[in-house]
């Protein structure tokens, strides 16, 4: 019954949701507050972990997208959900894979739970009004095309 309700609710609710605000400390030691960065341009948030192989495939595509759209103030927030067991590997991974985006640490999974996620990778595309335009769990080849289509739609509307 709950599954049917969940599907029905999603299908019938066309109104897009506002992204929930959060404050997270970044890999550079600085606090990042989402609400203070909304309005500057589109934001891609991707949740990932060092032990997640599909996350690397997705982030490779994000790296390409970041390079392609850097002229339109695109921000990519890469939120690591690595807990204390693997937290020390985050900086090494980001450095060795040369990820150019802002990396935030959610080791208590407070933001992960705030967005009610159930696995990584999970990606959100947020427009300059803070509205979630696109949300997708998992990564398969082709997902990046849909993300780019949505991103281009945001750019066109702005």
């Amino acid at each position: 019954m709950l599954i049917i309700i969940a599907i029905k609710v999603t299908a019938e609710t066309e109104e897009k949701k506002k992204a929930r605000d959060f404050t997270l400390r970044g890999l550079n030691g600085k606090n990042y507050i989402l609400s203070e960065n909304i309005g500057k341009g589109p934001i891609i948030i991707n949740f990932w972990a060092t032990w997640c192989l599909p996350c690397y495939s997705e982030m490779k595509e994000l790296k390409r997208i970041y390079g392609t759209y850097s002229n339109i103030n695109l921000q990519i927030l890469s939120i690591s959900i690595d807990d204390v067991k693997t937290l020390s590997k985050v900086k090494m991974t980001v450095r060795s894979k040369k990820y150019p985006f802002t990396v935030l640490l959610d080791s208590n999974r407070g933001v992960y739970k705030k967005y009610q996620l159930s696995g990584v990778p999970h990606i959100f595309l947020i427009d300059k009004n803070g509205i979630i335009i696109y949300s997708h769990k998992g990564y398969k080849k082709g997902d990046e095309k849909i993300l780019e289509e949505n991103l281009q739609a945001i750019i066109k509307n702005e």
Partner: protein
Amino acid sequence: MPVFYEASFIAVLIITSVYSIEDFNVVGNNEFHYTVSQKDDSLNRFFEEWASVSLLYKKIGIDLRYEAHLPPSPGDFNLETRHGISLRTVSFQSRHILVKAGHFYTTLGRGLTLRTFEKRELGWDTRIDGLFFKFQNDKVDLKLLGGIPYAANGSKYDPLEAGEISFIPHDIVQLGATMVITDRPAPNSYWESLYFSLNLPFGSIYAEYASQTFNEFLDADTAKALYAASTLFIKDLSLLAEFKYYMDYNLNEGMVYNNPPSVIREHFYTLQNRHQYISNPDNELGFLVEATYPVIQDNLLTVSYGYSTNKNNTIKYHDLYTQVEFQFPQTVHWILSSGFQKENFNRHITMVLNPEWNINDNYSLKVEFQHQHTAVNDFENYEKIPKFYTQYYSGTLGIYSNISVSLFAETTTDNYIQGDFKIGQNRIWLGGELSLTFLESHNLTFFAGTRRGGKNCTTGICKNEPALKGVELKITSSF
């Protein structure tokens, strides 16, 4: 009937929130697992359901989670469904302050004194029922909490009070302290830690030292824990070193309260994960060193070695791992890896071949081949058992971004496996899976065939998964 009432409660909550109160921000998800598996002459049914909903009205939030499990926990012969509201939290959040009443999870420092968390795939949930306060700004992080912790099996433990304060005088430096007061293992036990971190462009250091005091029943000289991690970057070379020394520092058997870093590499591949070292903060000493280097352009080479032992040297665990990633030709991404794991007298050598071919924008093919050679000793007879091997194959065809079809196979020449099947039977497991994503946020996975049971490990915690001979349905929905 209670199931019906609880489910209806959540359903009504979702519908009313979404449709009638515009200012509410509602998110949620639903996970449903159903398995029918043949064992001997009978059919076993497994059922699990998690429904979570989070309502946010301005700065006030309400979180609820409903769970149902049949059997109550894996391998349980009890045929009654365990169900109920497993999480209920009211929260207030402003820019710098977070207050929660009800169930919550938290970690102090790196978990040496306190770490409560949920790992659904392992059936692990050590939440606290109580009050939580957090203040955070650019210079100070403060956490204060009190409540009753739950063990992974749902039972309640002695209450605790805890806190953490850390100062960030500069972006690169953090100094902190944590404290937990519990009646475990004896009344008024004080567990505390001090930590320090330095975060520089060319590397980082984190060190935390924990001890216990004011407890006449424990020997304060032995109850100690030290964890340290460091990274160093020299041009394209990245180095990581971790060290652990945990002696008499498990606050409760079963790790209800604390759960420090295991300092063991998290393996990506099934066969290696089955032989992970299981953490025991009461008696553990070890280290991990890892290096990555781009051999040619972005082709990354990783070498890692981890070692764990206990104070009497009766346990010795070695884990050597090498991995190389490269593109050849441009449309195929390869991961080749090899590993050596040694648990006392058991030795496992594993080779992995994992190419992923992006055929075009709409189709991709991913293949995984794992071969593991094992030599074990029979401890009862002190005889060396002949070596055996295990192989694992999988192939996944991705069609557009929302459909994938996978085939899985595992075979072994192990003649000493107990439990799932008898010696002399054909040791091959074969299954197929269809995964379908629809309406952006719903995923359906259907598996049919056989799947080997055994240890499923993550971060030093293992769960024994039952073998499967039948079908499995998983539906995940977000809204």
